[in-house]
């Protein structure tokens, strides 16, 4: 298993190196140590079972999130229980004659499994947007604070302190209540943005008032997200910026942004990548929690947290299957990212990577002797 994963990953790395070589002759020659390091990373990753399980879960959930709405066999706005009352909160059943929902139905008669495929897309897009938009904000502010120092550092860190002192969930509740009105105005004036986001969340155009609620959830999460990153980036910048290579870059007369992005950032990025992987899990769960509290989208949008909160009304006799199914999906998404993050931490840490390399060499030497 781990052998084939390693072969696959090293093939991908080779492919990438060859394509760079085609663009610019001599690239492989110049970056040979980098490529070897990447291959070592791939080896370290393929040795860790936790990482393999996490990567598998992430692959499955992301694929389902991307393809789910296209393969889903029921539309989420189709309230089938109105015409077929026997579909109202039907428990799961297994039959091969068809017309029998595998995971049961909800109070609108919709198949839970089909709704989960929509819900996974929404969860995935929200968590991805939070991390993709919130983390760079924290990184830029942290770089500024750490590199410039002085009054900018003081002001930025005080602001960060304020946001950290505030309980995150309550702050995001506050923003999620406040923001929809503003966002609705923004969506009204920018129809192209609206259509793009509707496509991203796989919702139909009628749901555009729900879109404001969804966007407010993720804007709220972004607002509470960046301070942690700003603090960590600042700390690592402070330790790196005194080293001689930064001094050399400065004495060469490079611009501040070039130093920050080309010389400082690559040296501190790996713990941030690990943290971002963990935070994809946290963001998924927090977004689900906000919509569980009723701050996200409303019917008919099949958001996972919102579906659980509705099922809570009938829990346990008439809705245990909804809570189990949606809860398990949320658990698997978060578990995948968490396991992957744990493996990546070992992979990105040069010390553990060396240890793994030494172990592998010793093993191959032993086998060679036999």
């Amino acid at each position, binding site marked *: 298993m781990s052998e084939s994963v390693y072969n696959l990953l090293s093939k991908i790395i080779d492919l990438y190196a060859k394509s760079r070589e085609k663009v610019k002759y001599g690239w492989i020659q110049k970056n040979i140590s980098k490529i070897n390091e990447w291959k070592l990373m791939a080896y370290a990753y393929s040795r860790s079972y936790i990482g393999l399980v996490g990567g598998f879960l992430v692959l499955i959930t992301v694929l389902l999130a991307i393809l789910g709405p296209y393969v889903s066999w029921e539309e989420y706005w189709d309230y089938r229980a109105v015409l077929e009352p026997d579909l109202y909160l039907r428990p799961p059943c297994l039959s091969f004659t068809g017309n029998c929902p595998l995971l049961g139905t909800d109070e609108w008669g919709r198949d839970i499994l089909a709704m989960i495929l929509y819900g996974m897309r929404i969860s995935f897009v929200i968590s991805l947007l939070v991390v993709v938009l919130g983390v760079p904000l924290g990184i830029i502010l942290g770089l500024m604070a750490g590199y410039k120092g002085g009054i900018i550092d003081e002001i930025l860190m*005080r*602001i960060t*302190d*304020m*946001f950290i*002192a*505030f*309980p995150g*969930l*309550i702050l995001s*509740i*506050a*923003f999620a*209540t*406040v*923001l929809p*009105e*503003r966002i609705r105005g923004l969506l009204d004036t920018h129809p192209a943005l609206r259509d793009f986001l509707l496509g991203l969340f796989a919702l139909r155009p009628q749901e555009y008032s729900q879109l404001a609620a969804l966007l407010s959830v993720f804007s709220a999460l972004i607002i509470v997200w960046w301070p942690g990153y700003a603090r960590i980036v600042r700390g690592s910048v402070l330790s790196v910026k005194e080293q001689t290579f930064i001094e050399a870059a400065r004495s060469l007369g490079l611009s501040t942004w070039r130093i920050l992005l080309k010389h400082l950032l690559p040296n501190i990025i790996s713990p941030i990548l690990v943290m971002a992987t963990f935070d994809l*899990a*946290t963001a998924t*769960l927090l977004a*689900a*929690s906000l919509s*569980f*509290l009723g701050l996200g989208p409303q019917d008919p949008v099949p958001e996972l*947290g919102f579906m*659980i*909160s509705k099922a*809570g009304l009938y*829990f*346990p006799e008439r809705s*245990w299957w909804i*809570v189990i199914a*949606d*809860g398990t999906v*949320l*658990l698997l998404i*978060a*578990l995948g990212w*968490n*396991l992957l993050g*744990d493996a990546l931490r070992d992979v990105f840490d040069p010390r553990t990577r060396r240890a793994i390399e030494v172990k592998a060499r010793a093993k191959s030497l032993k086998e060679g002797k036999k």
Partner: protein
Amino acid sequence: MTFIPTIVGVILITYIIAYLIPTDPVRAWVGGEKLLNPEALERVRKKYKFDAPWYEQFTFLTYMLFTGQLDDPIKRVKVIQELSFRFPITFELAIFGFIFSALIGIPLGIISALRKDTIIDFFVRFFAFFGSSMPSFVLYYFLILALFVMAKTTYLAGVPRPSTTCYAYISSLPSSFPIIGHLLFYVGQIPLFGSMMCGEWNIVWETAKRFYLPGLALGLLNGGFIARIVRNSLLDALSSDYVLFAKARGLPKRWVWNHAFKNALVPLVTVLGLQFGGLLSGAVIAETVFNIPGMGRFMYDSIIRLNFPAIIAGTFLFALVYVTVNLIVDILYALIDPRIRY
């Protein structure tokens, strides 16, 4: 002294959020569009200085908050009164959650550090992942299903409080004991401790019966994380030079352990302190699902109803809690680790 700008800043952030709302909160307070009485609207607006510029409003609200005169515009009580009812309940929940997460986390961490790379260690790691990946509300629902619906070992309504004679006794304490009496008075506001002070043990038992389920749920979610911290710091300490030296000198096992454990305690104290602070700032979802009228629920309700005086008072309390917890953690550092001096 660095915490004063933090507190002021937190209140300011709340205020900015309040300003972001495009609707008029006073309209919501006096009863929405249908019941609107223009005279009442004007009166309430004048009372909270909503017709004045923002800095005047801000200073007015802060002044009223610090002097304890701020009225709750919806419930017709002083905001301070409401907070002094809600906060002790959250404190009680935090105590139970804290006890359970320490009870679950610390022994598991020690066991997995001792039996490194065995099946127990694997189980503990998995448990930690599980705790950080489980959607909290799903776990709460299943605990309710198992222990409330099926086993019928708890109940989920109301919060047990000591009798009125007990409250009279507690409020007479400051006059009978000069300094400790005041302290005891504030401790006695927490129902659990109040009933302990009066010796009403049946109330204590009822409280434990009411709160053990939410406490267990919070403990299951946080315990794995604590176990991991304990495991890692203990392994670090056990592989260090002084432990090797102590072993080489032939010290008894208990002494070696003492050395290792003392050094492993520092990160543990940080994590426990931050966890307790996090629990104090309101487990909103736990309070929603388990129906506990604590701070998190209070803040949620206030935000939904645009009840600004309550929101500002609550955020002030949260900022205060955060600062106090950090201070206590710093003091504990100095107690545990003599190398740290401030």
